[in-house]
């Protein structure tokens, strides 16, 4: 039972850490009242998904993995290339993540100019007062 636990669950700890980070980021996006805290939670969520993809590409301790650069010497020494396809996907996704963060922060600054606060509950309260 203990051996099964170690082999099946702890051997894939990268994915467990990824899920834990996704839950931390999602909690911050939903439960935090401050809008900049929500942006920080969004950033953590995105990075956790990147961790999941890079873990998919990775090769464990046996056989030894190496960066996908052609080298006869490394092949003779018994190294195996990691899969470069998820790396390319995530390289694009990092740039998109920065653009998303920049747009979110621009919206936060605009909301602060309009309402004078960056707390979500206060903004909703002010909006309700203006509506009535």
């Amino acid at each position, binding site marked *: 039972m203990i051996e099964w636990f170690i082999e099946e669950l702890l051997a894939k700890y990268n994915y467990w850490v990824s899920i834990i980070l996704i839950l931390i980021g999602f909690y911050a996006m939903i439960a935090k009242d401050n809008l900049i805290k929500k942006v920080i*939670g969004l950033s953590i969520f995105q990075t956790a998904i990147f*961790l999941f993809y890079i873990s998919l590409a990775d090769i464990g301790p046996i056989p030894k993995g190496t*960066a996908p650069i052609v080298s006869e010497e490394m092949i003779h020494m018994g190294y195996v290339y990691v899969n470069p396809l998820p*790396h390319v996907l995530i390289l694009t996704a*990092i740039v998109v993540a*920065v653009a998303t963060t920049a747009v979110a*922060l621009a919206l936060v600054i605009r909301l602060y100019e309009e309402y004078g606060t960056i707390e979500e509950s206060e903004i909703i309260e002010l909006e309700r007062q203006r509506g009535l």
Partner: protein
Amino acid sequence: MIVPIDLALLTLIVIIALAAITVRDLLSAIMLLCAYSFLMAMVWVEMHSVDVGFTEAAVGAGATTAFLIAALSRTVRWEKK
């Protein structure tokens, strides 16, 4: 991957992520997010995806932190509760 380095970095990453969403001072939260991105870049170099690693170190730890600090300078620093 190199298992001991991987475990140590991932443990530190989870602790820093929890601290970043818990702390009340937003400037501290932003600097903790910068440390989080830098440790994530170290994880990716250690997982042999060096291109993603240096992009994250430049763009994630550098540009995102600069954007967040610029946004914070136009709004308020402390989180109300």
